[in-house]
């Protein structure tokens, strides 16, 4: 029996006196697509920040593939095969699209802090970066500085950087936020493609995306998980409807 991709036990996070995450117990299975939904301010992004070590944990345990990761630094967690995207685009603005992706693959290919190898000579890094660029559909923007890409392109690059390292646990924080319907459809297809055979955890507000993509859904309300289940069961869950989803679920059913 392999350990779950991510296991959270009694996870808590306080900001001063206010409790944002109030005891979360959750197992993310390997290879599943797991969505975390909940009303604004429920602590979804904070939960991501705790898992990826952007914020220190107040109490509780987080295990990544059976290994305790509380107290590790973000780069140490990244090296253990967990990669995340950000709600607010977080890319290397002055570097080209290609350079952004190449930066994202260097560590995983073992080049570390090398100052004795020429980048241009690293075929595997170039090929991997180009493959990701193809997957996210930005090949024709290869040499464009990331800072002047369109919003949707920057969001695609954001996901590209996240998956480029080949991490097997991917956290996506609102990957389709701010996108038009067409852009969202393309993004969902892309996410489905690039997270094949990987564990995906995502925070998302667009219920169409959530119910279309997720194998399981967890509902986070005021820092606690009130339900974790398959999408169909979440739709019918009375507590969930009461707490948060009532209206939007009905409209989702109606459409």
């Amino acid at each position, binding site marked *: 029996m392999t350990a779950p991709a991510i296991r959270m036990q009694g996870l808590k996070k306080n900001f001063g006196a206010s409790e944002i995450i109030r005891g979360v117990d959750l197992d993310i299975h390997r290879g599943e697509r797991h969505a975390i939904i909940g009303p604004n301010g429920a602590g979804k992004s904070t939960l991501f920040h705790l898992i*990826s070590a*952007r914020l220190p944990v107040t109490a509780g345990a987080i295990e990544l593939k059976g290994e305790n990761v509380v107290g590790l*630094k*973000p*780069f140490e967690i*990244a*090296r253990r095969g967990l*990669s*995340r995207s*950000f709600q607010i685009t*977080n*890319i*290397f*603005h*002055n*570097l080209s699209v290609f*350079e952004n992706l*190449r*930066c*994202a693959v*260097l*560590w*995983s290919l073992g*080049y*570390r*802090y*090398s*100052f*004795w*190898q*020429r*980048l*241009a*000579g*690293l075929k595997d890094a170039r090929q991997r970066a180009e493959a990701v660029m193809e997957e996210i559909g930005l090949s024709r923007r290869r040499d464009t500085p990331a800072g002047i890409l369109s919003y949707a392109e920057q969001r695609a690059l954001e996901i590209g*950087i996240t998956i*480029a*390292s080949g991490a097997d646990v991917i956290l996506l924080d609102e990957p389709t936020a701010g996108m038009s319907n067409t852009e969202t459809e393309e993004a969902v297809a892309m996410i489905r493609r690039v997270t094949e055979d990987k564990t995906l955890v995502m925070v998302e507000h667009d219920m169409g995306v959530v119910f279309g993509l997720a194998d399981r859904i967890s509902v986070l309300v005021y820092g606690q998980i009130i339900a974790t289940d398959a999408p169909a069961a979440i739709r019918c869950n009375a507590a969930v409807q009461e707490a948060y989803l009532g209206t939007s679920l009905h409209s989702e059913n109606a459409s």
Partner: protein
Amino acid sequence: MNSALFPRGRLLLWGGCLALVIALPLVFKSGFMVSLLCQMGIMVVFALSYNMLLGQTGLLSFGHAVYYGLGAFITMHTLNLIGKDGSPLLVALLPLVGGLAGLLAGVVLGYVTTKKAGTTFAMISLGIGELVAACALMFPGFFGGEGGVSGNRVIGKESFLGFTWGPQVEMYGLIVVWAFLATVAMFALTQTPLGRMANAVRDNPERAEFVGYDTQRVRYLMLILSGFFAGIAGGLTALNYEIVTAETLNAHTSGVVLLMTFVGGIGFFYGPIIGAILITVMQIVIGGMTHAWLLYFGLFFLFMVLMAPGGIASVIAVQHKLWAAGLFGRMLPHYLVTALPVLVLLAGLIGLIEMGYALLAGEGVGAGDTATRIMTVELHLNTPGPWLAALATAALGLALTRWIGGRTRVAWNASLSTLHGDKT
């Protein structure tokens, strides 16, 4: 796929530059010019090493002279340690000792300074710089007190391939070799995984952590390597002047290298080269012509920060783009026409500044012959004539600059929009 470090175009450019710097002393034979060229070569290495921090890693250091100065002192002590029985070959290799001293200083001091980035780094680098500068006065045994440490670069009985490093022009040759090697090495570094990740850390340290990189380690390594090259520059300066004083590692030297790098342009590899050459010329040439040179220098820096914050290299880059788009020919007449009133304005301002400085220095106010020579012109500063003339020139220049400059700006904006329109 052009994957070579030196593809043909770049090879030509670098070869051309090397040929130029080798040919320069054949044209400028005077001792003054050769000394000037030597100082330039040293400053080019120093400024490039500084830009490894500022431009490439995004670290604003106020204490980079520490690595330069320590490199210089260690080189000088090593030179004196070798003594008369050494050989010119050993002397030629001494800048490497300076480099290793700078590297070691980076290993020790950088461990503290690079814990944090941003303002914290700037403040700690300032503090460490002051600390080392204070040490220089506290330990005269090593730093030589106010007189500094001196030595003689001509040692040994035999020459090395005919070189003794005695004549200044031979020293220039040595500087060219080291400066060229260091520049190639620093450029090559920008093309490595560490060099690229330094850019990533500069742009977005948070994301760099999430792709697996310890940003603190990246900053630390870049500082150590930067210290190495600063130390080489320090070693060269020790050999060149045959004296090292505490001034080489104080805040003023750190400030000058920051200004050079910034004026040249931190966003381009070659920017600091331009800045180092230009500021060295200003320091030595204009510094020799007028007491007011620091004021001119300050005004020039102010002008650059306000008008071309990307430095001279960014101005060149834009012109190059215009050239490639066939728009440069359209802009050239505008540049020339604008240059005229700017020169008038400058003439007026320089007149005012020079007369003001002369007056402050107490010239032209005594009894009897009160004529003062300013730039070969005899002026009577106690009469309103010269003042009014300078003021009128400046005012005319300003008015014309505003008028013609406005039209140039319109043409400039039109060219830029054409340029960007072509691209998309």
